[in-house]
């Protein structure tokens, strides 16, 4: 156990289609993560890697056809899997808040912004008047200083960046202990994205709220989080402090992702490192390491046995049979 107790801990989470006649089919295949208070964790992965399903499982918000097949989810020592639906409603949007890529998924298009934030607070036991004051306060905190106008607006009357801020204001209104953000800046322009990243970092420094940031953008990871989990085909293939991920990736997939980015100092129009192939269908995985078909370092063993996520020292974990010196040179 680490020095600080984690505020949120996921143990061996498996998510998938629960089989009535057939066996269960898992898409998230055994994910364990911990976030301490004040910590910023990044989850990186491509579409289909299971990163969004992992975060949706925390508050049991999975799409109807998917269920948690196995695993525990602990919030401040409390087992959320055993929590009553009443308790879960309290935690959702109260102690643990979520923001999504599309603000329209969280905001009701027919209700004014201010009303929606006040209602969220009231649902969590705040009286109307204090809720109004708090709404004004959080709107100002996210940089929407014309609070009266924003409060009176319907979602369609605000620009994309303003909407994303309003959604973050709503998430922050209840002073959550954990903020889970699923690609909240992916659809935004870089200038607006920068504002949101700085805003979250600022609020996080003030309140000590833990942040889980899901993204496919390694640039965002480098700028925002302390620790990174890289997901591939439903599992974490590498987990390490941010600096280690960039300086000495311990998994060939992480190394390949880093190599494929056009860097400012790279040769203009030069060859980018290709990974080749495409991510596997999570429901049709074969035995062995799911990355092996695209991996230049694959050996026979990789086809036989899926590597476990093992400690490589200095807080770095990787799931690979080969030695990282192969691609770190």
């Amino acid at each position, binding site marked *: 156990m680490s020095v600080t107790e984690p505020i949120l801990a996921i143990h061996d989470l498996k998510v998938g289609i629960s089989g009535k006649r057939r066996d269960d089919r898992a898409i998230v295949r055994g994910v364990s993560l911990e976030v301490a208070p004040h910590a910023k964790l990044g989850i990186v992965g491509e579409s289909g890697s299971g990163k969004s399903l992992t975060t949706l499982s925390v508050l049991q918000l999975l799409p109807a056809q998917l269920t948690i097949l196995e695993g525990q989810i602990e919030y401040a020592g409390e087992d959320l899997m055993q929590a009553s639906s009443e308790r879960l409603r309290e935690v959702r949007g109260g102690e643990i808040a979520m923001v999504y890529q599309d603000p329209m998924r969280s905001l009701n298009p027919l209700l004014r912004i201010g009303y929606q934030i006040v209602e969220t607070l009231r649902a969590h036991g705040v009286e109307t008047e204090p809720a109004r004051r708090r709404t004004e306060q959080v709107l100002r905190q996210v940089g929407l200083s014309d609070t009266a106008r924003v409060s009176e607006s319907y979602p369609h009357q605000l620009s*994309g*960046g303003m909407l994303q801020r309003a959604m973050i204001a709503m998430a922050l209104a209840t002073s959550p202990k954990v903020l889970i953000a699923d690609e909240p800046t992916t659809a935004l322009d870089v*200038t607006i994205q*920068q504002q949101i990243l700085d805003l979250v970092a600022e609020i996080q420094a003030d309140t000590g709220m833990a942040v889980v940031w899901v993204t496919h953008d390694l640039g965002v*990871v480098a700028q925002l989080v302390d620790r990174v989990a890289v997901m591939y085909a439903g599992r974490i293939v590498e987990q390490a402090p941010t600096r280690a991920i960039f300086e000495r990736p311990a998994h060939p997939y992480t190394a390949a992702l*880093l190599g494929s980015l*056009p860097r400012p100092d790279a040769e203009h129009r030069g060859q980018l490192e290709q990974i080749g192939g495409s991510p596997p269908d999570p429901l049709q995985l074969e035995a062995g390491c799911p990355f092996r078909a695209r991996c230049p370092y694959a050996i026979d063993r990789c086809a036989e046995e899926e590597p476990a996520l093992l400690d490589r020292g200095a807080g770095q974990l990787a799931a690979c049979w080969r030695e990282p010196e192969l691609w770190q040179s």
Partner: protein
Amino acid sequence: MAELILEARDIIKTYPGSRRGAPVQALRGVSVELEAGKTLGIVGESGSGKSTLARQLVGLETPTAGTITLAGQTVTAKTRPKPRDLARLIQMVFQDPFSSLNPRLTVRDAIGEVLKVHGLASGDTVRTRVTELLSMVALPERFAPRYPHELSGGQAQRVAVARALAVEPRILVLDEPTSALDVSVRAEVMNLLVRLQDELGLSYVFVSHDISMVRHMSDEIVVMYVGRVVEDGSYRDVLDNPLHPYTRALTAAVPVPDPDARTAADFRQAARKEVVLEQPPEVGCPYQPRCPLAIAVCATVLPPLLTLTPNHQAACHVAAAEAGVAPAPAG
């Protein structure tokens, strides 16, 4: 001097407003040029007009005013070549290959259709030519009978490129060609585009909000802001030594995949300014409300696009003064 394959002069595009709303000016006098065999990168935030410009260039829409010259052929609001002739010259590749490919046509039919419409192949030659085009984008023939849903994102985008190449165009307009793809396959599509350009001598217009990709690919870059070009020059000049404060904010906001780069630059502060206006001011510089360098004149006079250093233009009063370029005469 190399051949100017594409030249757009003072393009204005106005869309009618909704019901009683005022008309929307998406392009407010844009001029760009592209040398044969080179790549012109267009960057800007959403609403800057970069995709609108792409649609005018490729002939999907006709500009309200201004002239586009493509390999000597002139397109204006009044005169334009036959759409089919235009299509032989310039083709477009869109962001999402799954919405630009017909889901009910196989790869072979999707590409074959183009060849037949343009009378470039018939009968048996269609099959041969489709195979040839697929091999150009590094897809084996076994992909020909597949439907789009049987392809991965990277494969589908390569089919879209093959389809665009079927008419042997001289110019490709690439509108966010990698943005909808998984990170791990973006490099593959970029490498393919570079190789095709070298092999076929194609000229590219590369529209993207991904500045690192634009930088990687482009020779010249134009930066657009609310329907105007605010900076124009070589990729090095524009991105390494930006003159316009908007370009500086834009380049500073790109998250660099390097934890050591976590330093707050001055212009990151600028990007954080609270003002998020939906409507830029009608008078003066449209960037002025967000600009950390704004001076009195910026609120009243629209800065013209001036050459401030050789082959490097910017539309900014402050940058012009710093470069020692005389400000435009008033009015």
